[in-house]
């Protein structure tokens, strides 16, 4: 187990700064997920921790020891790559043993460790096969096994499930979290899939354009996003955003469509006349006859136990309503909706920051 700290870590390629001073403190045994859209720098940040990518400025510390100048091989980390990066000419057994042979582990010990790990990951029947003879899921297990067998201080995962099909991804997600529970090691996991992040992480670091947008527990990010980006990125389907202005007296918001809705009277700092964006998750919107906001239906998805209605407000703002049960609506039908005032989020439209103060 190990604590990983990043202090004002930066990375530049020439004049282009791709990681813009990130501070992060990942505690012993935590499962931390770096999440963000493509190009946000999450994989670069992971590679900087691994030592595969040199850092331009700041410090990376593992167990309070700054490792900036320590080679990747000597940091005591193991990495699972997006492409698995298995040695194609070696059998599964050789893939697992290579790292141990490199540090002079005895043959008996190697055999014992491979036996334990392969049994744990259910790859013991594949030990004599080459990677090309394995399925995607099996390759992924071997790649994880190669990391586990070395007993590293920290596990690094770089989008390890992105090459798997949806069903296998869900299975592997469960297996990796189970592995974390069993081993108790610090794990850092990179993904662009916020569902993976929400289901696996103890802590999530949301990144955008090389900056840390928010770092915290999954439900804290979901319930109290710091800004519009995090609010929109965390949660599926994504949060609805409706622009408007706080009305005189501050009791309600007048949307750009001219419709109004009552605002929560506590928990937020806003001023009458302030341009704000109201955020509300699709499951906190309900269809109410005579509701304050009207929406024209664009499409409907019926999943059996739940329904999604996609529509647009009068000004073209897109909106999603998530309802339980089988709700039908006609395309083009105008429905009136109401949001749960206790579940709304308010953001300053200009800065994008949350107006929540507690």
């Amino acid at each position, binding site marked *: 187990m190990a604590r990983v700290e990043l202090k004002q870590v930066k990375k530049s390629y020439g004049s282009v700064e791709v990681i813009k001073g990130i501070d992060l403190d990942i505690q012993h045994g935590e499962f931390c997920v770096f999440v963000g859209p493509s190009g946000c720098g999450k994989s670069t940040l992971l590679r900087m921790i691994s030592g595969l990518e040199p850092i331009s400025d700041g410090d990376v510390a593992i167990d309070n020891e700054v490792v900036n100048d320590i080679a990747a091989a000597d940091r005591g*980390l193991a*990495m699972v790559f997006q*492409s698995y990066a*298995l040695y194609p*000419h070696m059998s599964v057994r050789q893939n697992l043993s290579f*790292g141990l042979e490199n540090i002079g582990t005895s043959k008996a010990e190697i055999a014992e460790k491979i036996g334990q790990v392969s049994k744990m990951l259910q790859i013991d029947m594949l030990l004599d096969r080459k990677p090309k003879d394995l399925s995607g899921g099996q390759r992924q297990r071997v790649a994880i096994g190669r990391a586990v067998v070395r007993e590293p201080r920290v596990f690094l995962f770089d989008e390890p499930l992105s090459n798997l099909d949806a069903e296998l991804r869900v299975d592997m997600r469960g297996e990796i979290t189970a592995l974390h529970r069993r081993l108790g090691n610090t794990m850092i996991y990179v993904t662009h899939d916020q569902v993976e992040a929400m289901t696996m992480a103890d802590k999530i670091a949301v990144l955008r354009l090389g900056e840390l947008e928010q770092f915290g527990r999954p439900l804290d990010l979901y319930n109290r996003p710091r800004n519009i980006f995090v609010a929109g990125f965390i949660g599926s389907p994504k949060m609805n955003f409706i622009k408007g202005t706080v009305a005189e007296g501050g009791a309600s918001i007048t949307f750009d469509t001219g419709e109004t809705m009552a605002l929560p009277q506590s928990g937020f700092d806003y001023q009458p006349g302030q341009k704000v964006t109201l955020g509300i998750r699709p499951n906190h919107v309900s269809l109410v006859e005579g509701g304050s906001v009207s929406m024209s239906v664009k499409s409907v998805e019926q999943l059996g136990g739940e329904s999604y209605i996609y529509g647009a407000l009068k000004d073209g703002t897109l909106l999603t309503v998530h309802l339980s049960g089988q709700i039908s609506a006609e395309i083009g039908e105008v429905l009136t909706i109401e949001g749960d005032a206790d579940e709304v989020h308010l953001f300053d439209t200009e800065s994008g920051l949350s107006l929540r103060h507690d």
Partner: protein
Amino acid sequence: MLALQRKLGVNRLAWAFLLPNLILFGLFAFLPVILNVFYAMTGGDNVLLADRPDVGARNFVTLLDCENYLDVNSCREDKFWRAVWNTVRFVILQVGFMVGFALLTAIILNRDIRARGFFRSVFFFPVLLSPVVVALIWKWILQREGVLNAFLDWTGAGGINWLVDAQWAFGWSVFISVWAHMGFYTLILLAGLQAIPRDVYEAALMDRANAWRTFRRITLPLLAPTMLVVLILALIKGVQTFDEVYAFTGGGPGTATTFIIQYIYEEGFAGAPRLFGLAAAASLLVAGVLVVLTLIQLRISRNNVDG
């Protein structure tokens, strides 16, 4: 076109398109091979097949008649066997050095070194030269009053008659051949090196493999299929060596640098009488060796595609 296809049918139209190439290929490749077999089975120095007496396998017997194949003096056609053993020695040395140096160069050029593009061009440049130009450049450098001896004289070491001494002439023939062709094989090996995924090396780094173990356990095995192709290509090319060495040493001193293709050329075309039959028989034997090498290369290539 559709009307023509309807008239001739798809198969006949395909043959019609292939015909010009087939005629040319047949005229300049298949026909000479067939004629070569006839020449090998006939004797005399008459070029017209009709005027050549049938000798059966006598030309092959003449070439292969040896009391001890390791002692060329015991062979009836000792020039042939001198050329064979020169070629064997040449191919072993040339291919060994060439593949070794090409691998070393490719590994260096694959690294993130300064002016990498320039050095890649430098190593490839000799491949673009005509074999005769290569031979003349080195002849000017190595002749008695050449550049190298001028330099050695200037340093006080004294010049050597490089092209008159049999050992030196052979050694320089190997060197020049390596120098002239190494760039081509370096390029193939470089492509092979670049095809090895970067993340496999990163995985090896995370697995704490040092540079030597990474080379031995990752680079070499993953480069092995490319190495085999390079080896076979270099072997075939080595057996076919003629023009640049012929222009460089003329096969001498004596027969020190006479290789098998030069033997065939001299027996069939340069000497008197012109022993077409003997030359054709020798060329069929060489062709047999080259076919075997080519089949090995095809098998390896197919395995690579399948694997």
